[in-house]
């Protein structure tokens, strides 16, 4: 990867490289733009590069230069969505698709009591060196939530593919399992569940900022007159309000990349709101995956004469 980036950057074929940069600790990686071939030494790609680089291309695309970007298979769905909405110009991108075996969640390592990590070797199992001794554990135990229901290993949009075996498949979890479980509960139970989760919200807006579908230049949450502007939630109502609005704004556009839950400092399962919309859309209006193609085809931008009436939600099986 680094070699390829070096080649393209020094030959002038691209003006910048968008990739991940090594941080202070072995599990620290952050998205970074490299403009200098020498700086590429800091570039890194490992199990902690879970962040989706697609959204950074909006800002990068404003420069008058070509950008080299590395995308994992699931990131390409988000990019396709951005392309379909003309947020990013395809001709300014050089996309290199890279393989992914599922990304790791450092929070899950921490909850297993693994602290003071000094080094990590990634193979079939993880060998973790810490200040307090070594650990070895299977990869599956500490995957990011989003990787538990992988969308597949195919890149939907790319210029070239490099790297490891791309067909290696991970376990395909049922992404609607938790949604279905909640649907099976009574309204009071559901309310209690969401009350508990959403009341943790500190309105840092990280979920909005990281979301590759939240791309409005002016966001309703930044409009002081909207009544839902960015500020600490004062009441339990505002927590609901913020999350419903946020989820609704990306309904039909969310590719279920799971970034919202990954970045949430409070650990709120925000993706469950998005998945509810995806489940409903797929159930009512036909199977739908945002970002499958670069065509604009959001189910909320079209209609069918034979669409179900809203009372369909009262008739669904298995919930009450």
């Amino acid at each position, binding site marked *: 990867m680094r070699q390829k980036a070096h080649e393209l950057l020094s030959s002038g074929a691209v003006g910048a490289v968008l990739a991940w940069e090594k941080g202070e600790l072995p599990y620290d990686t952050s998205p970074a733009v490299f403009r200098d071939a020498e700086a590429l030494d800091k570039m890194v790609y490992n199990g902690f590069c879970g962040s989706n680089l697609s959204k950074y291309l909006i800002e990068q695309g404003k420069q008058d230069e070509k950008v080299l970007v590395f995308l994992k298979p699931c990131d390409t769905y988000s990019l396709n969505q951005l392309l379909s909405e003309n947020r990013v110009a395809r001709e300014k991108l050089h996309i290199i698709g890279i393989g992914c075996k599922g990304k790791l969640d450092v929070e899950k390592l921490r909850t297993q009591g693994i602290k003071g990590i000094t080094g990590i070797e990634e193979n079939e199992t993880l060998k973790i060196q810490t200040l307090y001794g070594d650990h070895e554990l299977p990869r599956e135990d500490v995957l990011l939530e989003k990787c538990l229901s992988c969308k597949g290993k195919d890149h939907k949009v790319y210029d070239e593919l490099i790297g490891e075996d791309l067909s290696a498949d991970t376990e395909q979890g049922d992404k609607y399992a938790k*949604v279905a479980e909640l649907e099976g509960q009574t309204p009071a139970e*559901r309310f209690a569940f*969401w009350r508990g989760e959403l009341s943790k919200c500190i309105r840092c807006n990280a979920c909005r900022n990281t979301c590759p579908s939240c791309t409005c230049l002016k966001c309703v949450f930044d409009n002081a007159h909207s009544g839902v502007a960015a500020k600490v939630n004062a*009441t339990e109502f505002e927590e609901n*309000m913020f999350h419903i609005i946020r*989820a609704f704004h990306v309904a039909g556009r969310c590719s279920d990349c799971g970034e919202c839950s990954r970045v949430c400092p409070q650990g709120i399962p925000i993706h469950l709101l998005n998945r509810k919309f995806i489940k*409903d859309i797929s159930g009512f209006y036909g199977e739908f995956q945002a970002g499958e193609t670069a065509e604009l085809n959001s189910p909320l931008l079209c*209609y069918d004469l034979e*669409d179900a009436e809203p009372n369909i939600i*009262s008739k669904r099986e298995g919930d009450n």
Partner: protein
Amino acid sequence: MQVKDQNFKPLVVSFCCNWCSYAGADLAGSSRLEYPAEVKIIRIPCSCRVDPLFVLRAFQRGADGVIINGCHPGDCHYTSGNYFTRRRMTLLFSMLDYLGIERERTRLEWVSAAEGARFAKVMNEFVGKLHEMGANKRLGDIRCKE
């Protein structure tokens, strides 16, 4: 067992499309059909004008139920507005339900200008149901109560 408050008067916000349902409500009135006085009608140019935020805002300000009335599918004054409403509101109501706001508190109905009787019937049903369910305590904003 939950003790019902006999004096409970639900606050119902009814969004009515200017071309069909608003005229339907008018007809209900001029035909002297009774429907609950708790229903507060807001006239909108098309059911499609209802931003999901409006529904949430109504609940925030203390509504116990929100009902959106539009032209029958195929009869929209703007050709296709109500088809979009249908998809949008189905998803919104489903989401509210998912968050624990009972699905009986939200409703989308098609009422034409000639259906005064239907308007009254729908409102009576809807408000009757809200009477059974009691006040909406789950989405109200405490700061908005007097």
